[in-house]
C-alpha cells in the first residue's frame, strides 16, 4: 500500500469547489508523508473532469468509467471504487464531504473492514486528523490504526483550492466489472423544493433566528427587529424543520446561500452546515447567551446575553438611531 488517492465528484463534467479542496487536502497529506498523490473520477463520461484534473500537479489521473455509473447509486459507486482500490492499493483515500460521499463511502469502508474519518478540518503530523465534535464546540484528534486503506473526507472550506499547482498528469482508464442486477436502488432525477418567493440571496440586511428563540410564539420579537432594520428574516434549519418559518427562509448547506452587508444571527450556535450558507456576509453580528458558541468564531461583533433581553433593547436602539 502506498500513495494518496483523491476521489473527486463531478456533475456533467463540472468539478465543484469542495472537490478541488479535497485535492488540496490530498496534496497536503502527500507532501507531509512524502508520497505520490493521484486523483480519480467516477462516472459514465469522465473525460472532461479528467482533463481538468490532469492540468494539476498530480502523479496520475484515473477515469473509473462504466455505463452503469451514469447516475449515482451507492451500490454502483461502492463496487467500482472497491475494485479500483483493491488494484491500486492506496494508503490514503481522500474524499470531499458531500452528501454522496456520506451515502456510499461508509459502506465502501466496511468492505475493507475500515471506517471513514469523516468531515475532517485539518491534518497534523502523524498523520492525525482533526474533526469537530458536539457541533463545533469541541475538536477531536483521530488516528488510523487499521491495516487497510485509511479513508478520509474533508469539510467544505477547510483546505484552500486556489493554491493548487499546475502540472500535466497522465490519464488512464479503469473499467470496473459491474452488472445491473448488483444495483439495488433506483434513483429518479433531482427536483427543486418549494417555489422560491423570497430572494434571500440578494438581501442586503438579514436577521436570522435560531433555536435560542425557544418557541414559535416568540418569533414576533425578531420580526420586529427585522422590521426596524428593514431586513429580511432568515433562520437556521431547526426553525424551518419545526415549521415555524417556511423552508425558503433557511440558510445553510441544505438551504440558501446568502451574502448580505449585515447578517445578524440571533440564538444560532454556528454549526458548520449553517456557517457555509452565510460566511460570505460582509459583516456578521451575533447574539448568544453562550460565550463559547462557535458563531463567535465568524462574527465581527457579538453580544453575549439573553436574546429575550437583548433583542428588544436592540430594536429600540435601531429605532432611536433612525430617529
Amino acid at each position, binding site marked *: 500500500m502506498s500513495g494518496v488517492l483523491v476521489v473527486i465528484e463531478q456533475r456533467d463534467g463540472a468539478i465543484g469547489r469542495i472537490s478541488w479542496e479535497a485535492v488540496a487536502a490530498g496534496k497536503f497529506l502527500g507532501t507531509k508523508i512524502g508520497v505520490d498523490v493521484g486523483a480519480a473520477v467516477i462516472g459514465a463520461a469522465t473525460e472532461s473532469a479528467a482533463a481538468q484534473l490532469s492540468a494539476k500537479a498530480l502523479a496520475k489521473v484515473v477515469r473509473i468509467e462504466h455505463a452503469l455509473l451514469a447516475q449515482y447509486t451507492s451500490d454502483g459507486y461502492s463496487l467500482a471504487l472497491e475494485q479500483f482500490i483493491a488494484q491500486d492499493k492506496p494508503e490514503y483515500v481522500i474524499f470531499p464531504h458531500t452528501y454522496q460521499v456520506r451515502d456510499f463511502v461508509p459502506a465502501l469502508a466496511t468492505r475493507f473492514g475500515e471506517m471513514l474519518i469523516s468531515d475532517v478540518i485539518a491534518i497534523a503530523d502523524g498523520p492525525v486528523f482533526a474533526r469537530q465534535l*458536539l457541533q463545533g464546540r469541541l475538536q477531536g484528534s483521530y488516528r488510523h490504526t487499521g491495516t487497510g486503506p485509511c479513508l478520509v473526507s474533508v469539510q467544505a472550506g477547510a483546505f484552500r483550492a486556489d493554491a493548487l499547482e499546475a502540472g500535466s498528469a497522465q490519464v488512464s482508464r479503469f473499467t470496473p466489472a459491474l452488472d445491473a442486477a448488483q444495483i439495488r436502488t433506483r434513483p429518479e432525477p*433531482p427536483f427543486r423544493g418549494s417555489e422560491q418567493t423570497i430572494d434571500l440571496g440578494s438581501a442586503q440586511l438579514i436577521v436570522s433566528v435560531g433555536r435560542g428563540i425557544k418557541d414559535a410564539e416568540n418569533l414576533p420579537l425578531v420580526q420586529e427587529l427585522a422590521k426596524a432594520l428593514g431586513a429580511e428574516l432568515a433562520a437556521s434549519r431547526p426553525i424551518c424543520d419545526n415549521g415555524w418559518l417556511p423552508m425558503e427562509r433557511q440558510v445553510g448547506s441544505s438551504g440558501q446561500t446568502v451574502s448580505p452587508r449585515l447578517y445578524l444571527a440571533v440564538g444560532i450556535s454556528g454549526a458548520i452546515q449553517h456557517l457555509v450558507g452565510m460566511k460570505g456576509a460582509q459583516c456578521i453580528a451575533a447574539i448568544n447567551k453562550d460565550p463559547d458558541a462557535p458563531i463567535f468564531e465568524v462574527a465581527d*461583533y457579538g453580544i453575549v446575553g439573553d436574546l429575550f433581553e437583548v433583542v428588544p433593547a436592540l430594536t429600540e436602539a435601531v429605532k432611536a438611531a433612525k430617529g
Partner: protein
Amino acid sequence: MKIIVAIKQVPERDAQVRIDPVGKWIEELDVQFALNESDAYALEEALQLKEKHGGEVIVISAGPERAGQVIREALAKGADRGIHIEADDLGSRDALGVARLLAAAIQPENPDLVLAGLQSEDLGLGQTGVILAELLGFPHSSLILHVDVTAKGLKVKRELEEGWFQSIELPLPAVLAIQSGGNKLRYATLMGIKRAKTKEVRRASAGELGADASPVVILEGISLPQKQRSTQILPGSPKEASAALVEKLRFEARVL
C-alpha cells in the same frame, strides 16, 4: 412491517461540556443526556409507518445503564419493545465496532426495515446507519425525509444539497438513515408513559453478541477548538451593548 430503529443517547444540546482530566472525553457527571435529534425523527417515521401499514416498532440502543432512559422515552412515544445492548466500553469501539454490535443484535430479528438517524449530535461521524446496511447486506439510502411503502418495496425522498431532492426506489429489507425535519415529532402522552412500563426491554451484553471490538480508528484526544476569532464582544447591559452595536454597525462597519 417489522421496523427496528437505532437510537443513541447523546449529551443534551445546551449542556455545558467540560473536557475530562486526561483529555479523552467529556466529564459525563456534569451532563444531562437526551435522545439524538435525527433519531427522534427516525422513530417518528417508524411510528407513522406502523400506523399506516401495521406491524411492530422495536428500538435498539447500545450504551451504558443510562441509555435505558432513551429506550423508555421511545416506548412511551409508542414503540412496542426495546433492545438495550449494555456496554460501558463504547469509547474503545469505533463506529464500525458499534455498528457490529447493533448488527449482531438486529440480525436474529429479521426486520423488514431498519432506521437510523443521519448523524449523532456528539461524535457526529454520520455513518453508523450506512455501515449497518453493509453489515446486514441490505440496500440503503441516507438523508431521507419521507418514506412511502409501494408494491415493490419503498419509495423514499432523499435530501440533496442546496434545496434539491430526489426520489429513490429500493426493495425490502432495507436500511434508511433519516434526516431531521421530515415529520412533526410527537410527545409522549401520560398514557404512553404508563404503558411503557409494561413493555419488554431485552438486555444483551456486548460480550454475548461476540462482535469484534478492535478499533480501526481511534479518538486520541479532545480539545477546545483553536480560537481564530477577532470578534468584538460589546459589554454592558442589554441596553448599553445594543446602543454600542448600532454605533459600530453604522460608523465602523458602515453596513447600516
